[in-house]
């Protein structure tokens, strides 16, 4: 499995609203498809995404099977200080994909 792709500016000024983009490799099996034998392929998706900055929640999503494979998210964050963004994607099977990005705020 490929690592998540995350775009966070390396530097910003205090009070800036920055752009964050995140892309993770996942088939997002919708539970609507059938295999060659006609059996329903069970749902297996990323159902939750969370982003925190220095431990405080910034943005999150509750995700349904209608989100495309390799889910892409773009959102904003207001930064007041240097620190670390933490990103978490939760799979239906309970596993969590985690990643971090730091930003220098002056």
């Amino acid at each position, binding site marked *: 499995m*490929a690592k998540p792709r995350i775009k966070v500016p390396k530097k910003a000024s205090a009070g800036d609203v920055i752009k964050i983009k995140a892309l993770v*490799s996942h088939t997002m099996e919708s539970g609507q498809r059938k295999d060659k034998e006609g059996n329903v392929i069970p749902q297996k998706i990323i159902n939750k995404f969370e982003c925190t900055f220095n431990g405080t929640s910034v943005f999150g999503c509750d995700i349904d099977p209608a989100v495309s*494979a390799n889910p892409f998210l773009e959102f904003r964050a207001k930064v007041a200080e240097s620190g670390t963004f933490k990103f978490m994607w939760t799979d239906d099977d309970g596993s969590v994909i985690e990643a971090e990005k730091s930003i220098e705020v002056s």
Partner: protein
Amino acid sequence: MHFTNNKTLFTLIGIALCVTASATPVDEVLVIDEELEMTTRVQAVEGHPISEIYSGWHYRTPETRALEADSFANPGMLGVEQGEEIWHTVEGSEGKSCASCHDDAAVSMKGVGANYPKWDEKTQRPKNIEAQINSCRVENMGAEPYKFDKGGQKPLTAYIKNQSLGMPVELDLSEGEMQSWWEKGKETYYLRTGQLNLSCASCHEQNHGKHIRADHLSQGNVNGFPTYRLKQNKLISLHNRFRGCIRDTRAEFPDAFSDVLMGLEVYTTWRGTGLSVETPAVRQ
């Protein structure tokens, strides 16, 4: 009315498939990440039946075009990054990775994707990137060759081709017997096949720019493969697409990397001479 036999049905489908309203390719410029300007339209190489060559990018909607212009948002880049990991992964009895011999792909693989397929003296046939990877795996790494579209074949091919992003496609047809494989490929290109009796040229030469149902027909250039297709939501290899197109004519389709499809790869790559390598392109 009942369709009593398939022939009637397929005749009707054939009529339904008649291409409709014309819509020319868009007059836009593809710039990747606001810095790398791509050649997506170019005067055709001598001997080409079409005067101006367009990348398939020009035939897509604004949203699909934007996806390719942003290397972060382009989901095909997930495959490229996976290919980069494979590049550095040791496999086989010799304890080697691709990087053990070729070091930094950004240097050693630059231009490679723009000039393949190349003539291979040893096998006396053209060699594409996939075949080159497999001969490296077998001869130098002591690893199993990748089966078609399996293992790391697609991501590694995409990673290698991506090192030539923006470079113009150019084949050397003077090497070995490349010219005769080009001829074979040309024959395949114009050969009508299947119950729908279509050749590659029926859609991509005679009707490019028009619509087949809601689909905007491109010139069928191959400069962006492996390409990220929204339909499958993954990287699709060139030979998979060849087979898909032939299947859609309701013909039996040849094996990947067979002589027929290697000839077709040589010929269709030549048809896109001068276009930038776009791997991984984004298509519908």
